[in-house]
């Protein structure tokens, strides 16, 4: 209980059943420094992410949002502090935490289906079973008719969908997404945002999404963590109350929703402050 003090985020929320919210990921006073301490990418950050929630981490370039996500994945280690998953300190990557990268990481030598099967293959799942599950995941990302295509013959959006299907194949509790749609066209990006909401509704994962896109964060996430740069700190941690716990399968429905414009304006204002800070050479 004492450790809870370290978390200034809107924790301790109660869900209607009266049960306390569970937090699979707890970032506990994490500092990440590079160049022997000369550069601080993440500065004493404590947050926790709630089960079945989509948390977006947003902020200007260089605010340490990707560094934080990579540490949650176990691909990098904190300089100070620790990150826990279900109470256990994270010491490396593990299959409970799947990750989707900004660059296309669908394995080019495997077909879409073989990619979707891959994490189950290396975990020793029998062929028939993993095939069935992989097809199910490809259906979830609307790629079932492309299962025999190699990634090089798929569009960027489709390759990211393969990457999502593959990440689902490892049956992770937490899905980490590092600017997954950053290099996609606006319209494809929009499709992928809606797909992310759909995947969350169907699979009930805990998703942490790093993005620099304000609209994407508001649309996809239930809660937004805004990080500021140099050093990387949490500037604001806001639960998107105006959504009333709802998720919208169509982006335009959300944009019409009362409260959307205010949230957007607020985040743009915060981003503006950051830009001004960078311009003034701070």
């Amino acid at each position, binding site marked *: 209980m004492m450790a809870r003090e370290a978390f200034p985020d809107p924790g301790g929320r109660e869900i209607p059943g009266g049960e306390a919210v569970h937090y699979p990921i707890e970032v506990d006073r994490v500092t990440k420094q590079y160049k022997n301490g000369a550069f601080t990418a993440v500065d004493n950050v404590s947050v926790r992410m709630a089960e079945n929630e989509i948390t977006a981490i947003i902020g200007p370039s260089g605010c340490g949002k990707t560094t934080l996500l990579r540490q949650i994945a176990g*691909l990098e280690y904190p300089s100070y502090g620790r990150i826990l998953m279900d109470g256990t300190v994270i010491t490396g990557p*593990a299959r409970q*935490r*799947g990750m989707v990268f900004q660059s296309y990481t669908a394995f*080019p030598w*495997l077909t879409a289906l073989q990619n979707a099967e891959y*994490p189950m293959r*290396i975990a020793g799942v029998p062929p028939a079973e993993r095939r069935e599950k992989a097809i199910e995941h490809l259906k979830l990302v609307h790629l079932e008719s492309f299962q025999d295509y190699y990634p090089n013959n798929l569009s960027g959006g489709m390759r990211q969908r393969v990457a999502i299907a593959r*990440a689902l194949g490892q049956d992770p509790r937490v899905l980490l997404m590092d600017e997954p749609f950053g290099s996609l066209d606006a319209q494809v990006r929009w499709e992928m945002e809606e797909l992310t909401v759909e995947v969350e509704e169907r699979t009930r994962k805990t998703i942490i999404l790093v993005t620099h896109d304000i609209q994407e964060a508001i649309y996809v996430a239930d809660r937004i963590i805004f990080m500021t740069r140099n050093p990387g700190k949490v500037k604001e941690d806001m639960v998107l109350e105006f959504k009333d716990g709802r998720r919208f399968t169509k982006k335009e429905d959300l944009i019409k929703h009362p409260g959307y414009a205010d949230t957007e304006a607020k985040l743009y204002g915060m981003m503006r402050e950051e830009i001004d800070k960078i311009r003034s050479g701070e």
Partner: protein
Amino acid sequence: MAQATVQAAAGVRDAAHGDAGNGGRGEPFIPPRQGFLALRSGYSPHFRTGLAIAGAVALFLVWEIGAHSVSAEKARFFPPVENVLGALYNLFAMKGFIYDVLASCARIYSAYLLAILVSLPLAILMGAFQNVRATLNPTLSALRYLPAASFIPLLLVWFGPTDAAKVLLLFLGVVWFLVAGMLSNVMAVSGELIEAALTMGASRKTVVLNVILPAAGPHLMTSGRDLTAVAWTYLVIAEVIGAQSGIGAVMMRAGRFMHVDAIIAGILMIGILGVLTDAVFRVAHRLCFPWAR
């Protein structure tokens, strides 16, 4: 004058609009001709194949003209194409040249196989593990600067004029370059592919054999292909020194009797084998890596 031009232009526009026959479209647009040295041309693949053939024919044409323009008493030192082809036919028909070709191929491919067996694991281990690279790479890079030909006296002392000496010379000629090429192929594998595998719970062994190796595969094969040409170079050197069989030995013997046509026939044969090897690699590449573009 200017007025007349304007009127003419307007007339063209009216005509285009009035032409209902092609659905109101404009005249077919004819792009300006760019000529032979076009920077981004749309010449067809057929045309380019034709150019390739023309290039090869030009080489033989120059040779042919050159051979016929030397004086009669010097003609045997510079035989024309047909004499060389005749000599090549003679070699095969009368001198059992096929056994020499096979002997050379056996040497070159066994040496090559040996070099791949050594360089591939080295390149993969060094590419995947920084500490292995730090340990071995500086030394292996230095070995690249030792000319393989400088090992000839040593190899002759150790093994005599045997096949083992020849295969080892070929091996030394290519292996360090193979290691360097393959190492850069392995290191070019995207770090994010490796990280993606790690977040899926892949073990170290799985990452090396199941991610790094297939990801680098097509490039490794290309590196291998490029060095076959170097292997042929050392083959001739190896066979020139104390060999009874092989293409190089045949050329050396022909030289002693000033059979220039037979010497050139040997060179031609090596060229043909090189082109064939290249073609085999290309087909194998397409079959092994259908996913690569």
